[in-house]
Structure formats: C-alpha cells, structure tokens
C-alpha cells in the first residue's frame, strides 16, 4: 500500500550566500520535503537541467526555520564539481527539483541531556541541524568543530548562543592547533551521547582516540558514500559494517561508530 508518495518536488530558492570560502548556504521553500525532515536525514537534489549531470546529489538538512506558517529548510555545501557549481549559480526564485526526505537520521535518546557534537569540515552541515533541535528540547550541547584552516570555519555568529563551541584547525590558524578528535578525551566523559559528522578518516581516528577514553556515551556517526539513487534500490553506497554490508542511504546514513570501526 502506498503510504507516502515519493516524487520529484519543485523547491524554490529563497536565498543563496557564500558563508565561508567555497561554502554556500542555500535556503529553500518546499513544504513537502520539510515534512518528515530531521537532523541527519537528507534530500536528493537534481543539479542541472537535462540528463547531464545525470544523478541527483545527496544533501543533508542543515537548518530549519518557520516563515509565515511554512517550514523552510537549508543545505550547506561546498562547490566541488559540475553539480555543485550549477547549484551555486541558482538565484532567489529559481526552481530546483528534489526528492526526500531520505535515510535514518541521528537518534538522540530521551534521557540524554548532555550531547557532544563533533564536526569536521563540511560535516558541520547536519550537526547544526541537530544542535538547533537539541537546544530547543532543552538539552545541553557542546560542539567540537574542526577544519583545515580558519577560512573554512563558519563564523561564531552563525551558531546559536546557547551552544558551547570549541574550535580546532589543522594549521593552528584558529582555536586548538591539531585535529578536532584531539579534543574528544576532555569532553566525552561529560556526555551522555555523541554525534559526529566528518570525513571517514576522522571516524577512524576517533575510534582510535576512544579506545583510551572511559565513557559509556554511545557515539553515532553520519556516513557518506557516493550514491546513485538515495532510496535503497541501486546498491551503490554499500558500506561494510561489523554487522554485514549495509546501505548508507537506507540503513543509514546514521550508524553506531562501534559497528563501523
């Protein structure tokens, strides 16, 4: 039985701005894709007209806001190739075809009042959605946020004021000089749960760091893999977990770190 129809919807560009070097914030109006949206879930965006580029790009929900009774949503993305370059050229009023929401997002437990969020680079995109939601639920949230260099960090004004933020840069141009995972041992014992998004190398490093930390906090990470469909039909985004092969798009993208590394 058809319970909710999945179809291409027309999203209207509300605004587009470059928020740090090569990173764009795109606000969209598309109520059907706001319904069921949650931190860690994603949408597929068609990044071009015609059949080239062919495949939609998966993008995490980055932020939500209420405007005149409507929930608008945003994505945050880097310009990396043809698709994202096309996306960065859309202007207010332009239309973008999209479908979703897809995947299984972050799952903060009811009793987890202290949340540690860890973001590396563009991994900040879904982490902010989670921070906004967790703060609205009255949880206490600390964010460890790392990037290669200061120009790739979002400015502090971008974040809610109730959020504690600790910055790290690999070149030392802002905050802790080193990897964001270096900061984890000092903060994890306080946390009831931790949520992570960044490159896979960061997850591997985090798993190493965690072996030396005494904490019962469950760690959830958001996986990324090349996808064709986003809906569980192409089997392109398989990741090999301790529990067997899993589809990032359908079984994830949120996974328990302990199942991966």
């Amino acid at each position, binding site marked *: 039985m058809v319970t909710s129809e*999945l179809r291409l919807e027309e999203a209207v560009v509300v605004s587009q701005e470059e928020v740090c070097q090569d990173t764009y914030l795109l606000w969209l109006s598309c109520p059907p894709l706001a319904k069921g949206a949650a931190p860690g879930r994603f949408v597929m965006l068609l990044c071009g007209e015609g059949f080239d580029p062919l495949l939609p790009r998966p993008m995490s929900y980055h932020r939500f806001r209420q405007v005149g009774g409507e929930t608008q949503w945003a994505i945050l993305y880097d310009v990396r190739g043809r698709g994202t370059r096309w996306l960065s050229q859309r202007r207010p009023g332009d239309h973008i075809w999209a479908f979703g929401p897809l995947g299984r997002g972050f799952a903060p437990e009811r009793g987890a009042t202290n949340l540690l969020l860890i973001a590396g680079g563009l991994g900040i995109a879904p982490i902010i959605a989670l921070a906004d939601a967790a703060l609205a639920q009255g949880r206490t949230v600390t964010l460890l946020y790392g990037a290669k260099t200061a120009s790739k960090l979002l400015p502090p004004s971008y974040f809610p004021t109730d959020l504690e933020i600790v910055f790290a840069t690999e070149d030392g141009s802002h905050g802790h000089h080193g990897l964001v995972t270096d900061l984890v041992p000092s903060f994890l014992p306080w946390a009831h749960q931790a949520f992570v998004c960044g490159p896979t190398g960061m997850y591997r490093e985090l798993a190493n760091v965690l072996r030396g930390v005494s904490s019962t906090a469950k760690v959830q990470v958001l996986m990324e893999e090349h996808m064709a*469909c986003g809906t569980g039909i192409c089997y392109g*985004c398989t990741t090999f977990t301790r529990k067997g092969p899993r589809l990032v798009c359908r079984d994830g993208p949120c996974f328990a770190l302990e199942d991966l590394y």
Partner: protein
Amino acid sequence: MNIAVEIGGRGKRGLLLSNPVMVASGCFGNGIEFRRLFDIDRLGAIVSKGITLRPRQGNPQPRLVETPAGLINSIGLQNIGVGRVIKELAPIWATWRVPVVANIAGESVEEYASLAAQLDGTPGVSALELNISCPNVENGLEFACHPPLAAEVTAAVRRCTALPVIVKLSPVAPNLVAVAQAVVEAGADALTIANTYPALAIDIWSARPVPSFGGGLSGPAIKPLTLRLVSEVAREQLGVPIIGCGGISTWQDAVEYLMAGASAVQVGTITFRNPRAPLEVLEGLESFLQQQGIEDLSQIVGAALGS
C-alpha cells in the same frame, strides 16, 4: 486501447504484462523498497535484483562513477542468495498484482540450472530472466559472447522450469544476432536487449581506474547504441518478443524502442534520478498512443523497421 504484452505462452505457462513498461534488474531493488512510495502495481513487471546461488557481499567501493549522461556501476551482484529470496521475498511478491521476474546469475551451467529449479514453482516468481551478461563479476560475459555456451545455459534452465525464460543479452557480444538465434533455438521465450556496456573512468588525481576493475555503463548515453541492437535483432524475426533495455529515460525513448521492434521496455538508471520515472514513461506512452489513435500496442512494434 490494448497495451498488454504476452511473453512466453507457446503452449507453456505465459506471462501477461498489463502494459509494456517494466523496470530493469538492479534499478529497482526488489520492489519492496518502493512499495510504499508509489503504486508499483501499475507497472508491467518488476525485474528483481540479480540473484545468485549463494549470498554475495558485492564489490568494494568505489562502485559508482557518473559520466556524461551516464553511470558506470560495479556493484558485483550484492544479494542475499536464492534461499533467502525464496523464503523472505517471494512470499511478499506473491501478494502483489504486478508480476515479478527473478533475474538469476550463475557462474556455471549447473548453477543456472539449480537457480531455475529452486525458483520453479515458487509462488511470487512469474518468470526468469537469465543474466548472462553481467560485466562486474569474473567471467560474467563468457556466456553472452559465445552462441553455443549461451544456448547450453538456456537449454539447461529450460529443462528445469516451466516458467517463461527471458535471456538478457550483452551489447558487446561480437555477433549478437547469432547469440539471439542460439538462445531462441534453445528454448528462450523472450530476449532482453541489452545489459550495460563494459566501461571505465580514470581518477586523474590518483592515476587509478574507477571503479577499480571498470564497470558497466548505463543511462541516457547508451540509448542510441542499444536501440540499434534491438532493431538488428528484430529484423531477424526470431519469433519471440524483444524487451528493450538501455538508457530509456522518457516516454519518447520507449516509443523509439517499440518502433525499433521491442515489444516491451525496461526502465533502469533514470529511476535513480526520478523515482517515478517508470510510471511517467508509462503515462506518456499511454497518452501518445491515445493521441495517435492507436488501438493496439502491436501496431507500433517494429513500425520503423520497414518491410
């Protein structure tokens, strides 16, 4: 307007499609994924993901590379194996109105025969599609390129099942017409033309091929190539229906394939871009036929082949 398509028949159990729009193997999961997302019962048929004798985890990453209007994939037949398909999936398929064609892939004649024997009589399985043309497993193309081998595997399957047998051919067989003739003589009830084209991309920053051992190219880029193959085989009038499969992305593409001699079509890669694409192809085809005053689908099948 009659748009039903019959496959098989010939005195055995046939497969009647309510319309000519099917979904291609590997491009629709096992149907279960989309069951709640749109009305899949409207499709002509669903072809399952490739089923093997034993479970397979499939190939390592990277599995996908986007190319101009195309996609190279190297999934490697990730699937749960025929035993679990029969236990877990077929009972669900059996409750659907849309017929499900089980796509099977073996490494030997014996494996194909065993797969066919196990699936024969399984409620929920309406036909078999023999994948003798997967480029992403070792020797996957062996059977598809040699007419005697293709005939041998078809005959072995034929002996093990009363289900309609569809053979999915490779677009890179050196002599596709000879392969088609051989499998029809060996008892094939229909031909799917064709599978993906073996292809490769290079990651210039690491100087490595992607996928690591190449993969199969699909999508709009291959449509003109496969369309020609369909017309070549259709001209031979082998007496079995041809199912066109290659880059069909719009209803116009489907009409082209039908006019080139296909009796039905499979929609594949475009579903990754638009989940409703198979239904949109069907809807567009229906209104085209209506507009043109065509009463029976068979009137346009092969219309572009001439005398």
